[in-house]
């Protein structure tokens, strides 16, 4: 059993893509409970999947050619008869097992891939062994045909729903009714471009996950002027700085300032990006004195310098601490901690 499962997992190397496609399909037409069920299964297996997937792909790349080509193909391919046999046999088995509420092979395949990663050792090797069993081969072929049939049906349904889906997709592709905060965003970007510097704004988006918070990415060298503009311009007037967060994305670092105008409730999240080797963001303390301790905290825990800060010292860690604990690559000096 486990071998078959493993073989099934080795097949599609893009379970994510598969899952996303399936999810998209499911949204438009698939059975909801199947999605949830699959999602549940996938997610349960997800943590193992991460580490496993790499090993799977690596092993596939190095191992049997069949597995390799398998990996390369998208999740709903025409099963390649010869090379697929062992893997698809396994897949068929697994499918046979998990027959109810099929949402498409891709999902389950992705499932299988996820499920197996922990035990993904020696998959490619296993792929070779299973072909020997004739009974299993027969079962595999049958399942394969069933799968092919199901795929065809789905393709037909997809085509039918394709029009609707395409329509919905198109609708989803445009911004759904523009957010009421869009004018705020536009105005701020306009003012920043004209009054600070035409290149000051790198990006300007509406963050739908956060009540449509207008989010602007400002270049670090224009930040002091931009901050003054945000606070003093009568249309913006954001005098209240409520939070400063530092985030360590592994490629760069970011400092996010959340400001709001208490009278008009106009609010912005301003992000300033900086690189990791010498992270430095001009301090906002001259504009909002309330940035004092938050910036010190970011300096202490992430190592971002804030030129212009009146008192940039460590605040939470002891003064003689080495390193910046909140960084992703932080290694505690004391291994027992």
């Amino acid at each position: 059993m486990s071998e078959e499962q493993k073989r099934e997992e080795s097949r599609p190397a893009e379970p994510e893509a598969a899952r996303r496609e399936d999810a998209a399909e499911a949204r438009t037409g698939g059975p909801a409970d199947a999605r949830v069920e699959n999602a549940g299964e996938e997610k349960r297996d997800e943590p193992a999947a991460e580490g496993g997937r790499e090993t799977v792909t690596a092993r596939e790349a190095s191992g049997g050619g069949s597995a390799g080509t398998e990996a390369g193909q998208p999740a709903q391919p025409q099963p390649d008869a010869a090379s697929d046999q062992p893997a698809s046999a396994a897949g068929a088995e697994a499918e046979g097992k998990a027959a109810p509420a099929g949402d498409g092979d891709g999902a389950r395949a992705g499932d299988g891939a996820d499920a197996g990663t922990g035990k993904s050792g020696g998959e490619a090797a296993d792929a070779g062994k299973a072909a020997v069993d004739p009974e299993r081969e027969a079962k595999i072929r049958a399942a394969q045909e069933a799968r092919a049939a199901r795929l065809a049906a789905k393709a037909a349904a997809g085509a039918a729903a394709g029009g609707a889906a395409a329509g919905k997709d198109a609708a989803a592709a445009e911004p759904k009714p523009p957010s009421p905060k869009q004018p705020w965003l536009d105005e701020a970007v306009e003012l920043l471009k004209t009054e600070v510097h035409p290149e000051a704004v790198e990006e300007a988006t509406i963050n739908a996950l956060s009540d449509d918070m207008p989010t602007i990415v400002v270049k670090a060298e224009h930040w002091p002027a931009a901050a003054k503009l945000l606070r003093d311009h009568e249309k913006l007037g954001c005098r209240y700085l409520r939070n400063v967060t530092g985030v360590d994305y592994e490629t760069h670092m970011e400092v996010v300032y959340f400001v709001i105008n208490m009278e008009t409730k106009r609010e912005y999240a301003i992000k300033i990006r900086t690189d990791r080797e010498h992270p430095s963001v001009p301090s906002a303390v001259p504009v909002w004195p309330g940035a004092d301790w938050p910036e010190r905290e970011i300096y202490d825990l992430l190592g971002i310098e804030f030129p212009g800060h009146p008192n940039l010292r460590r605040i939470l860690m002891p003064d003689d601490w080495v390193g910046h604990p909140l960084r992703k690559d932080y290694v505690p000096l004391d291994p027992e901690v």
Partner: protein
Amino acid sequence: MIRTEELLLNVGPQHPSTHGVLRIVVKLDGEVIKEATPVIGYLHRGTEKLAESLNYTQIIPYTDRMDYLSAMTNNYVLCYAVEKMMGIEVPERAQFLRLIVMELQRIASHLVWWGTYLLDLGALSPFLFAFKDREKIVDLFNELCGARLTYNYMRVGGVKWDAPPGWIDKVRDFIPYMEKQLQDYDRLVTGNEIFLNRVKGIGKYDAETAIAWGLSGVNLRCTGVKWDLRKDEPYCIYDRFEFDVPVGKNGDCYDRYLLRIEEIRQSLRILKQAVEQFPSSGETMGKVPRVIRPPEGETYVRIEAPRGELGCHIVSKGKAEPYRLKFRRPSFNNLQMLPKLLVGETMSNLIAILGGVDIVLGEVDC
């Protein structure tokens, strides 16, 4: 040769009045403070770093321990942030339960503040009266979720435990009892000459300063700025209830004192309405996937905790653990103005001002 020197005095970290392990390095000239520098970090436990390797439900007990006197609001801010990112709807009964416990928690937190503030000022008895009343609230919580201080009560999508039968009636009975106690406390303390002398006109600042320094909660409202997140950025079901937001005038310690007492009254008012409208049946958990995995993106939510604006900024990469979780703690932001307030004051006023800011070190250090 006689010469005067400045005295360098360490207030804390072990000190009866610093409300936790806070150290203030004070340069004194006689009894007048020339410079005061708060030193924090004695209670830093790395909650934000730990959160990066735990899933959201596992982080909830950690939030309890941040502002440990007001744990329900901490629980709520995390659950609220995740629910907002995932678009989860919380059922009615759970919303009501959440609101009721948050308001009870506000009353308990303000009672602790009242008792300890007066203890700092030298009055020994109000501390015991406040804790006697807080016992009643804490017993209610004990019955509801099994814990007296660190509740771990809320979950993403609802609450963990439903109210046992009779619990709402106990809350209902508590309200008139507390109102009467508040009247007694007002008579005992608010008009007391010595007390007034200690807090009136002390630690004054104006609205401009408060907004520029990012203060929140009572520290902001005492200057006249009417900014309460329960009204200005409503969350939970606060917009269904009628209550006032008390606002001060002078920005001194006395106003902060009066505002907190009035906030207890307003909380009792909200509780009265909530208990009347409490749905008699309903779910306590919404539809939540088994593994909580917010979509990729970030969000910043904020609520009105008893100490000010408590915020939660989550950056998620679509996994079960947050990529970055940052708590905007009100005590941390409120405390940064302390050096400015203390210059020129005496030691006794240091205690009065520090008490008036109402900090909890678990929150300052996170």
